[in-house]
C-alpha cells in the first residue's frame, strides 16, 4: 500500500467517525432533560403553551432526526446557526474561543516537549543510575498530581501571595508579552502531565534503541557519543513520541476544561461546559464537533506522519 493509498484510507475512515460523533452529540443533547427554552424561560414561570410556541419557533419540536439533518445540511455549508440563548452566531463565538485554547494547548505541548525530551534523554543515558530513578519518580509525580490542584496552588502562590502574575487574563492580544507572561502558570499546569508522559516514553524507547546493534556500530565507527545519541538514537526514538501526539491532544483538551476553569481562561473548555449548562444545542453541537474534528485530524496526521516515518505501519 502506498503512502497515498494509506492516507486515503485513513481519511475515509475519519468520515464515519465524524458523522458518528455528531450523531452521538445530537442524541445526547436530546437525552438531557430540559432544553434551551427552559433556560430562556428561566425562573419566570412561563406557560407550557408559551414554551411550546417558542420551541416551535426555534424548531426544537421537530423530530430529532429532522433537526439533525437540518443541522448537518447547515454545517456542510459551514453554517453553525444562531444560539437560541445568546442570539449570537455560533461560528463567531467559537472563532473567538478556539484561538485561546489552541494557544494554551500549543504552549503546553511545547513546554512538555521542552521538559520531556531532555529529561527523557538524561534518564535513558543514565540508565539505572540515580539520575534515572529521580527522573522516573519526577515523571510519576507529574502524572500523579491532580492538575486542578496544581493550578490552584500555583495561582495562590505566584498570583495572590507573591503577586508575580495576574490571576485573570490581561486585556491584551494573544501574542502580547503580557499575555505570554500570564500564560506561564496555565501552561505549566496543563503541560505537566504531558511532559511526564513524554519523558517516560522517550526514556523507554531510547533505552531500547540504545541496546540495538546499530548503536554499537556507530560507536565502533568512532562517532562521537553526542552524535550517536542525538543524530541516531534520538531520531529513531522520537517516532514513539510522535505516536502519542494525538493522544496528548485529547489529554490537553481534557486538561483545558479544568485549567480554563481555574485560570478564568475563556477557551473551548469553558465554552463547552457553559453550553451544556445552558442546553445551548447549536453551541454544544458545534463546539463538540470542532473538538472532535481536531482530535480526529490530529490522529490522522499522527498516523500519516508515523506511516511516513515507519513504512511497516501501512502494511498492518
Amino acid at each position, binding site marked *: 500500500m502506498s503512502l497515498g493509498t494509506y492516507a486515503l484510507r485513513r481519511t475515509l475512515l475519519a468520515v464515519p467517525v465524524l458523522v458518528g460523533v455528531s450523531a452521538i452529540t445530537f442524541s445526547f443533547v436530546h437525552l438531557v432533560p430540559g432544553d434551551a427554552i427552559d433556560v430562556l424561560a428561566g425562573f419566570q414561570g412561563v406557560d407550557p403553551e408559551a414554551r411550546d410556541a417558542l420551541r416551535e419557533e426555534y424548531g426544537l419540536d421537530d423530530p430529532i432526526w429532522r433537526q439533525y439533518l437540518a443541522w448537518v445540511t447547515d454545517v456542510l455549508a459551514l453554517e453553525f446557526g444562531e444560539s437560541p440563548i445568546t442570539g449570537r452566531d455560533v461560528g463567531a463565538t467559537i472563532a473567538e474561543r478556539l484561538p485561546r485554547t489552541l494557544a494554551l494547548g500549543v504552549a503546553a505541548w511545547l513546554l512538555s516537549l521542552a521538559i520531556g525530551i531532555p529529561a527523557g534523554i538524561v534518564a535513558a543515558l543514565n540508565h539505572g543510575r540515580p539520575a534515572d530513578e529521580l527522573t522516573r519518580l519526577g515523571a510519576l509525580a507529574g502524572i500523579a498530581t491532580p492538575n486542578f490542584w496544581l493550578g*490552584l496552588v500555583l495561582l495562590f502562590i505566584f498570583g495572590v501571595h507573591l503577586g508575580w502574575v495576574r490571576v485573570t487574563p490581561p486585556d491584551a492580544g494573544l501574542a502580547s508579552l503580557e499575555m505570554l507572561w500570564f500564560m506561564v502558570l496555565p501552561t505549566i499546569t496543563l503541560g505537566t502531565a504531558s511532559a511526564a508522559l513524554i519523558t517516560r516514553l522517550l526514556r*523507554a524507547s531510547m533505552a531500547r534503541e540504545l541496546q540495538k546493534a546499530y548503536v554499537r556500530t556507530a560507536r565502533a565507527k568512532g562517532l562521537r557519543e553526542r552524535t550517536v545519541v542525538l543524530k541516531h538514537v534520538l531520531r529513531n526514538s522520537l517516532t514513539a513520541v510522535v505516536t502519542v501526539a494525538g493522544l496528548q491532544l485529547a489529554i490537553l483538551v481534557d486538561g483545558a476544561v479544568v485549567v480554563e476553569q481555574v485560570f478564568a481562561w475563556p477557551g473551548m473548555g469553558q465554552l463547552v461546559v457553559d453550553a451544556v449548562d445552558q442546553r445551548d444545542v447549536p453551541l454544544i453541537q458545534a463546539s463538540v464537533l470542532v473538538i472532535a474534528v481536531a482530535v480526529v485530524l490530529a490522529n490522522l496526521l499522527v498516523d500519516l506522519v508515523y506511516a511516513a516515518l515507519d513504512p511497516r505501519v501501512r502494511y498492518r
Partner: protein
Amino acid sequence: MTDREPTARRGRLRVEGFESSTERSLEDDTAWPRSVERDREQSRTEGSVGRSRSRWRDIWRRFRSDRTALLGAAIVAILTVLAVFAWPLEVTTLGYRITLQPFALAPYDPGELYVGPTNAGPSLAHPFGTDWAGRDQFSRVLAGGRYSLSIGALAVALALCVGVPLGAIAGYVGGWVDEAIMRVVDILFAFPFLVLAIAIVAVLGQGYWNVVAALVITGWLSYARLIRGEILSVREAEYVTAAKALGASDRRIVARHVVPNAVAPVIVQATLNVGTVVLAAAALGFLGLGLSPDSAEWGTMLADGRSSLLQGHWHITVFPGLALFAFVLAINLVGDGLNDALEPRLEDGESRTAHRGSRTHDVERRDR
C-alpha cells in the same frame, strides 16, 4: 597448501572441529548468563530437577525484587486498609442493618458536623484541621479513600468487563464485527474524556454510580483497543504457529498462548488506569460534577476548599490533595513494577527498567 594447483572444484578445504557432543557443546557454551548459573545452583540445592514453577510465582518473585514497586504496593495497601477500617461500614436493607466492618480508625465520624471549631487549622485534636462545618478533616481524608479507591477499582473492573470481551471479539472475529466495534471506539475516542463525562453526568445526574458509569463509558475504549491489538499481534506470532505445528487445539492455543501474552499489557494498563480514573473522578468532583458535595471524596473536598486557600485555610486543600497524590503515585509505581514483572524477557536485572512506561503508551496507538 602451496603444492596444490589452482582449482575450480569446491569443497577441497573443510573446516573441522564442530562434531557433535553433548558434553562438549555444554562446556563450549560460555554464554550462559550468570543468572542461569544462579538458577542452576538453586535447582540443585532445592533438589528439584526442572520443576516447573507457576507463572504467577515467577511474576511475584520478579515483582518482589523491585523496591519502588513494593513501596507503591505498600502505600496502596495502607490506604486501602485505612479506607476500609476508617469507619464502621454498615449496609441497611429492608430494615436490617448488617455491620460489615465494625472498626473505626478515624477519631471522629467523618460526616458529623461541629466536632470541633469551624475552619480550624491542624492541632493535636484535629491533625488535619476542620472544615467550614467543623468536621474533622483527618477522619474525612481517611474515609474519603473509600470513594476514590472504590471508584477506581470499580470503574476499571467494569471497563475491563466491557472492553476486554469487545476487543477480544473484534480481534478474533475480525471483518465487519471488528470494523463496527472499532468504529464505535474511534467515535467515542474523538470525545475528550471530560467533555464526554460532563455530557454523561448531564444526562444521568450526579452521584456515585453515575460517576462510575461515566468513567466506564469512557474507560473501556482503551482496553478494547489494547486487547484487540494484542490478540492480532499474538495471533500472528510465530509461537502460535509453532503451537499449531505441535498439534495444539484452538482452545489450548487461546488458553496457553494467546491469553497469557495478550493479558499482561492489559493488567499493567488496568493498574495504571486506576490512578487515571481516580484523578478523573477527582476532576469531576472539582468541577462540581462528581459526588454530592457533602461526601468526603478527595476531589470533592478539594473543590469545597477552593476558596479556602485564599481565606488562609490551606489545610482544607492540602491534605486531600496529598492523599490523592500519594495514592496515584503509588498505583503508578505498582503499575511500573507489574509491567516489568509480567515481562520475563526483562529478567536480567540490567535491562529491567528499560521498558518502564513504554508499554502503556505504545499500546494506546496500536491498531489505529
